[in-house]
């Protein structure tokens, strides 16, 4: 008789582990924060130019991933 001692969580694939709300929300939050910093930083006009796209991407991502299961 063989006993399966491997926990169920270990059998989950990489996608299952990564595609959860917590980590995805953290990524989206980081992108939004980066966009805000890019908008207000005094160093590079190029970074400023890309700030809106970054914030928008982060916000849309946050809205989508907040519907993903826990």
């Amino acid at each position, binding site marked *: 008789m063989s006993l399966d001692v491997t926990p169920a969580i270990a059998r989950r694939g990489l996608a299952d582990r990564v595609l959860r709300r917590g980590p995805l929300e953290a990524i989206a939050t980081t992108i939004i924060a980066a966009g805000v910093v890019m908008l207000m930083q005094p160093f590079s*006009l190029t970074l400023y130019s890309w700030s809106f796209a970054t*914030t928008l991407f*982060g916000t849309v991502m946050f809205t989508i991933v907040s519907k993903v299961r826990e």
Partner: protein
Amino acid sequence: MNELSASSRITYRAVMVRPSVARRVRGLSDKTLAWLFITPTIVLLLAINIFPLLWTIYLSFTNYRANRANVPTIWLGADWYQSILTDPDIWAAMQVTAHFVIWTVVIETVLGFGLAYLIDKKFRGHGMWTTIILLPMMLSPAVVGNFWTFLYQPQIGLFNYVVAFFTGRAASSFQMLGDVTLSPWAIVIVDAWMWTPYVMLICLAGLRSIPDYIYEAAEVDRASKWRQFWSITLPMALPFIMLAVLFRGIENFKMFDMVNLLTGGGPGSTTEVASITLKRAAFESWRTGYSSAFAIILFVTVFGLANIYVKALNRVKSR
């Protein structure tokens, strides 16, 4: 029936009508009733929030000018967005906003947490001091802007005399609102004066939520007050501090009224925060399409920050 008085007749009719209405209402499902109650709110929200937002998004892609409403509008695509996001003047306004937001948030958080820590000690008369500290927060920003304009007057202003008393410098030798170096700090001081009590309130809620038994356990373990502060007080109050930081950050990012009353964006454009630039483009230059695009950029930024705020709020609620 003819002998009945007028009021009796009305009552009689009401009695006759009531059962049918009641039966009709009773026949509705819970879901229908819920929709019935929230429909007015949804209609109101659509009319005053969602429709203007969608209309602004549409205008941001056109050359529409509110003072020339009869001129046919032309679809410009993302031209205004490109123009705003490559404009060094708008970039400068963003940096002025950043200076204002960062310094107000830092000062308000440090002072607010410090005051909350003191008030939490429950010394004699702490209730009275709490009320006194909260007074600035209860004033209207328009009132605050007006009376600080008087306080900053170089000839008669109390602020200049207080600075003169402590530094020995002549009161009329500097202008808080007319100097390019001092005016960005003048608006920071006023905002910090007004909103530090708000941060204090949030931090106080955080400090009061820490259970006493944790400190008692630390006392048993002979942890010093310093160690208790760094290992218990600060980590446990941190979600509340983060909440205050985010809330003040969002509020100050869109600050308009107080800065407009104090300096109007001047001298030059040293205190021209993003919302004042937006107002000038919308209601002085009448570039409605351009200002709509700018408003959408600011909206997306605030919306993004609000998402983080809600996440922080949920974390605090789950404690």
